[in-house]
């Protein structure tokens, strides 16, 4: 699904914020992306959601070369990716419903079907009473849930979430994690950047750990290894198949 090979990234003329990143994420896998603030988590996600091109190395996604993809082909790939941005990036003049409907509308969906889907999902994330509210009137946690709903509404092939539980209380955080896990079980490859270690402990998933722009893989349940060098050939991840959660209320897309 995602293959990085010796990828480096820098902003403008600055020094590399990501160095020699190599990994391979299998379709349907779920990973946490951990690391201290400033380690480069958001930057790595930016490469994955095609907001930035690498300064070196090779990125293959959806079996195609992304580093050299033509600009006009990007929308096609971006429509397969759902992103929860760290700062939400909702459109302030649109209602919650419209914000969440946007990916469906962009992909050419029809009004009535969109509305049903969107309202169902917003209800599920606990925003039933805030459908017509605009982001400036929403709390941080509410905005975050709208952003999450927008990212998952199309049931993307790849879900990238940047600190998605940073602004919500633990109960909601847990609920959102359930959503991600359920979505992952339906086949969505998922990468969640977080520094909420509680969350990481709860879901037994492999971790991509970033520190100073260097990436390490940590198998589920293990802690940070002392060694900093490893063999990229072993750097293969497996899909998440443990299932410690029961079925969730989110079944709005079963008709697909």
């Amino acid at each position, binding site marked *: 699904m995602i293959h990085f090979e010796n990828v480096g990234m820098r902003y403008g003329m600055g020094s590399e914020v990501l160095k020699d990143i190599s990994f391979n994420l299998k379709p349907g896998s779920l990973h946490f992306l951990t690391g201290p603030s400033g380690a480069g988590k958001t930057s790595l996600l930016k490469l994955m959601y095609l907001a930035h091109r690498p300064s070196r190395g090779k990125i293959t996604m959806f079996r195609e070369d992304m580093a050299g993809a033509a600009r006009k082909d990007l*929308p096609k790939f971006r429509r397969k990716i759902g992103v929860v941005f760290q700062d939400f990036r909702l459109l302030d*003049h*649109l209602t919650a419903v419209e914000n969440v409907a946007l990916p469906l509308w962009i992909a050419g969906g029809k009004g009535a079907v969109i509305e049903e889907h969107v309202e169902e999902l917003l209800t599920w994330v606990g925003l039933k009473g805030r459908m017509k509210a605009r982001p400036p009137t929403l709390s941080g946690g509410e905005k975050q849930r709208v952003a999450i709903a927008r990212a998952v509404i199309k049931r993307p092939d790849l879900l990238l979430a940047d600190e998605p539980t940073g602004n919500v209380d633990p109960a909601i955080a847990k609920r959102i994690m359930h959503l991600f896990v359920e979505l992952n079980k339906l086949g969505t490859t998922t990468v969640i950047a977080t520094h909420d270690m509680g969350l990481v402990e709860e879901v037994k998933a492999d971790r991509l750990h970033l520190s100073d722009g260097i990436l390490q893989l940590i198998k589920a349940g293990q802690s940070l290894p002392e060694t900093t060098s490893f063999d990229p050939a072993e750097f293969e991840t497996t899909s998440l198949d443990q299932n410690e959660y029961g079925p969730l209320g989110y079944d709005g897309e079963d008709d697909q």
Partner: protein
Amino acid sequence: MTKAIHFLPDEETHEATRLLPYVMAVMVYLSALALMGSMMLNKGFGDMTESLSNRLTIQITTADAEMRNAQVDEVTALLRKTPGIDYVRKLNDVEIEKLLEPWLGKGNVTDDLPVPAILDVTVSRDLTLNLDAVRGMLAQVSDNIHLDDHQQWLGRFLRLMDMVEYTALGILLLVVLATICIVIFGTKAGMAENREIIAVMHHLGAQDSMIARAYQSRFMKYGLKGGIIGLVLAFITLVSLIYLSRDLAEGLVRIPELPVVEIAVLLVIPFLAALISMLTARYTVLQGLGRMV
């Protein structure tokens, strides 16, 4: 939920482009006036030159009245026999007095003033008249006979009309160019203002053409709105000018008629403004986005 999501904020919140329709109105106003002016001159003076183009004027300046009258008769007879001449008529005293009045003032044309005899000659449109032959013929009668075919005057007048027309076209061209520049500015300002929205739309998988469509339809509306305002103002200006000048210029110059059909053609101006505005915005957006990552 409406079918289309308006992902660009309303015009009202759009500081950069809110004034654009009014600038467009000024542009359309100027170009409509330039066009109307040139059309009216063209139509009005076109009729005038048309009526002069098959006329000759012959002046007989012989001082002695008896001799002059004899020459008038002779020339009239000669001309009536000449093929290519339809009609010859001597202007009577009242008509001549009227012609001289603007120069001499009313009542100053007295009997003892040596006034030339004037023949008004209508040339056939079907036959071409050899003017040199006619001049030769007249010269044999007397040296005091002068033929004026108005060509020199007409030529100069037509050149002046051409100049006026080119000036109007030049103004039009400049106004169109200025309009395009303003739309480019407006579009760029609008894009800068909505930079974040455009970035998010891209991340959600929107194509450049989708973003361009939002801008082009917005700028099409600006063009249409401005175009209608500008054209209405131009019509009001034109009608008041004609109305006022009819009173002021009574008897001095003939105010050309309002050429209704041609003026009606001006109704397409708002649509042209909308089209120019739309295409410019589309091109500007696609150009601008092409330079993004």
